[in-house]
C-alpha cells in the first residue's frame, strides 16, 4: 500500500524514457565494445539446429538485422520486441519446436563488426545473444551493406536438422533497409569467416543456395533511412519475389515473423492468424495484414474488436 511513492509528471516522463538508453539491452555494445563478442564471432564458426528428445521437430529460424547507421533506432526497438517471438510461436502452435538464432549485419568495407551470429536456441537464451550484439551504427553511405556475407554464412556455415533430416526448410528473416554488394568477396570471407574462396560468388547464386535451405524473407521497417524506398524494395523483390515485406510498425515485427512462419508451416491461415492477433488485443493487426497481404491467400480485411475482460458486478459500487 502506499500513496504513490513516485511522482508523476507527464512533461518529464518522455525525457526520462529517452534518456535511459537500454543499459543492459545492449550491455556489451553500450559498455563501449567495438569488437565482435566471442559468442557471436563468425570466424571458424558453424551454427547448428538439432533435433532432440525434447524437441523432436526442430525448426531453424534465423533473424538477422542490419545495425548500421541508416537503421537509426530500429535495432534498439527490435531488441525489446524480439524476445517475444519464441513464446508467440509456441503458444499459437505455429511451430512445434522453434529454434531461434539472432544475428547482426554491418558493412565489411568499413565496419569493424560486419557480421555477428548467435546460436540456435530453444529457450530464452537467445535473448542473451541479442544483448551481445555490437551496434556499430556505421556502414557506408552508399545504400549498400554486407547482406551477402550474412547469406553466405547461412548457406555454408549452418547445419539444420529440419532440412538435413526431414527436407523441411528453415526460415531466414533479414531485417534491413539497403542493398547488398553484388558479390561475396574472397578477401572479406577469409578475414571474417576464415574460408578460402578462389573467386567471388555472385549474389544471385548465393540466394539460390541459401533459399534451398531456408525460406528467406526481407523485412524493410518504417523509421529507417530508406523506408518505403522503391529501389530497395524492387531490388529485393527481384531476388526474393513476394518474400519482401514492408513493416510500417516496428511493434509488429514479432507478429509478422510469427504469422509468416505459421503460414509457411500451414499451421494457420491468414484470416485466422489475423483474428488471433486481434483477439489478443493486438493493435498490430493492420500492419501485419498489410505486410502479409502478398504472402497469404484470399486476403480479406479482418477487424476484430477485443472483448473486455469478464467482470460481473454493478458499476455503481463506491470503493477506493
Amino acid at each position, binding site marked *: *500500500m502506499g*500513496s504513490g511513492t513516485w511522482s*508523476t509528471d507527464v512533461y518529464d*516522463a518522455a*525525457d526520462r*524514457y529517452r534518456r535511459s538508453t537500454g543499459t543492459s539491452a545492449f550491455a556489451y555494445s553500450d559498455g563501449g565494445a567495438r569488437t565482435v563478442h566471442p559468442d557471436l564471432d563468425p570466424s571458424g564458426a558453424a551454427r547448428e539446429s538439432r533435433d532432440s528428445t525434447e524437441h523432436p521437430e526442430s525448426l531453424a529460424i534465423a533473424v538477422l538485422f542490419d545495425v548500421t547507421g541508416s537503421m537509426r533506432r530500429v535495432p534498439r526497438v527490435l531488441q525489446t520486441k524480439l524476445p517475444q517471438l519464441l*513464446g508467440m510461436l509456441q503458444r499459437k502452435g505455429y511451430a512445434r519446436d522453434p529454434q531461434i538464432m539472432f544475428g547482426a549485419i554491418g558493412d565489411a568495407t568499413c565496419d569493424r563488426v560486419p557480421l555477428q551470429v548467435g546460436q540456435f536456441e530453444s529457450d530464452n537464451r537467445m535473448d542473451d545473444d541479442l544483448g551481445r550484439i555490437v551496434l556499430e551504427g556505421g556502414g557506408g553511405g552508399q545504400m549498400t551493406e554486407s547482406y551477402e556475407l550474412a547469406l553466405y554464412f547461412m548457406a555454408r556455415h549452418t547445419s539444420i536438422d529440419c532440412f538435413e533430416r526431414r527436407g523441411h526448410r528453415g526460415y531466414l528473416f533479414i531485417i534491413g533497409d539497403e542493398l547488398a554488394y553484388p558479390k561475396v568477396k574472397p578477401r572479406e570471407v577469409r578475414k571474417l569467416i576464415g574460408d578460402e574462396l578462389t573467386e567471388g560468388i555472385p549474389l544471385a547464386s548465393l540466394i539460390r543456395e541459401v533459399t534451398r535451405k531456408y525460406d528467406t524473407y526481407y523485412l524493410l521497417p518504417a523509421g529507417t533511412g530508406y523506408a518505403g524506398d522503391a529501389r530497395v524494395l524492387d531490388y529485393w523483390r527481384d531476388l526474393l519475389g513476394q518474400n519482401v515485406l514492408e513493416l510500417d510498425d516496428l511493434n509488429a515485427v514479432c507478429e509478422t515473423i510469427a504469422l509468416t512462419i505459421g503460414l509457411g508451416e500451414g499451421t494457420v491461415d491468414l484470416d485466422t492468424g489475423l483474428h488471433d492477433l486481434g483477439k489478443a488485443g493486438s493493435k498490430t493487426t493492420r500492419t501485419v495484414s498489410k505486410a502479409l497481404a502478398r504472402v497469404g491467400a484470399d486476403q480479406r480485411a479482418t477487424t476484430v474488436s477485443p472483448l473486455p475482460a469478464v467482470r460481473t458486478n454493478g458499476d455503481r459500487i463506491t470503493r477506493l
Partner: protein
Amino acid sequence: MSHVIVVDLGYGDAGKGTVVDWLCATRPVHAVVRFNGGGQAAHNVVLPDGRWHTFAQFGAGTFQPGVRTHLSRFMVVDPLALAVEADHLAMIGVPDALDRLTVDAWALLTTPYHRAANRAREVARGAGRHGSCGMGVGETIAYDLAHPGEAPRVGDCATPGVLRERLAALRDRLTAELGPLDAPPVDDCVAAFTAFAERVSIVDGDYLTTLLRSGTCVFEGAQGVLLDEWYGFHPYTTWSTTTFANAERLLAEAGMAGHATRLGVLRIVTTRHGPGPLVTEDPNLPFIDPRNPTNPWQGPFRFGHFDAVAHRYALDVAGGVDGLALTHLDLASPQLKICRRYDWTERLVPGPAGDLDHQATLTEQLLRSRPEYDEPVSDWITTVEDELARPVVLSSHGPTAKDKSTRGSLLAPVPAASS
C-alpha cells in the same frame, strides 16, 4: 522449478517486498510477476549496504542482478510513475531495470485524468474518505468496467492514433461528470506514453507462458487480502483481487495450475494505512513506521496488536497457504499482545462471493467489535503457528535479506547451478 506466490494476509504493509527480495537472493529467480493492483504498491527493500528502494511497479527482486519484472494483464500500469521509479533505481546502482521489464499489452493504463478524477472524488467525500491512495488506480478499473473496450491499455501506447482517441474520450467523460480536471492536454499525455512504448518491451499474453517455463518465478501480490475487492471489509477495500486468485489463473493459463508454493505474509503488529476497521488498534503501542508516513490521501499509519481473528478470516477467503512468512519479529515486546477472539466471536464468516451487502454488514460489526487479549506472547512463531494452524516457513527480524531465517524445507535456499 517451483514458482512462489507471495500474498499479504493483512491490510498490506506486512513486508511482501522484503520477502520477495529474499526469495530472489536465495535461489535463481528468473522473474517477478505482478498480478494485481498498480503503482500505489509500496514494497520496501533495504540492502545490507543501506541502499533502499520503495518498489511500486518494478518487482521487489530488481536489486538482484538479472531478475526480470513482468507486469501481467491484471496489473494497472502507470508509465509516468514508472519512469521516475526507474530513474531512482538507476541512481542507486540499478541502471537496467527498464531493460528487464516486460508489460502485458492488455494491462490497463492509469493516466493523469484518472488521477485528477480520483482526487476530485476523494476531496468531495471529505470526512467519509475510503483511504484511497490518490493515484487513480481504482478510477482506472472503474472506468474500464463502465466503458468496456474503451479504456486505454498499455498496448495502445504503441499506436498514438488509438491512444489519442481513447484519452480524449476518457477526459471528456470524466470532465462531464466531475467538472474541469486538473490534468494536462491529451497530446502531452500521448507524447509521454509513446516514449514509454518505445522504451519498454510490451508483450502479448503468450509471453508469460515462456517466462514461466524459463525458470523460477515469484508472483508478487500487492496490498492485502483484508482489502480484497470482494472479501475485504466493504467499502474500505481496494479495486483489486488481492488473494491468490489472479496468480493461480495466470499459472493455469500456462498449464501450471496448482504448481506454485502459496506463501502468506504476516507481521506480528497488525497495521492499517487509512480508514476502516482495525479492531486491535492501540494508539499506545510505541511504534512508528518511517517508511509509511502520513499522507493527505490515506491519513495516518495505524498500529494494532496481532489480530488472529482477522488473519484467520484472510486465510479462509484466500483458500489457505502452504506456509507463512512472519515479519517484524524485532518489534516483539511485552506490550504487544495477540487477539484470539473479539467480544462476540472467534471467527468471521465471509458471505457468498460478490455479496457486498454482507461485507458491509460485517464492516459495521467490526467497527463495533472489541478485541480480547490473553497472556503476553513469549514465542511469536509457535503462537502464530498454533493460532492459524499453518507452519511459519520464514521469519524476519529486520529489513534486509540477511535478517531472514527459514524454518523447515519449503523455502530452503537453492544454490545457483554451477555452469
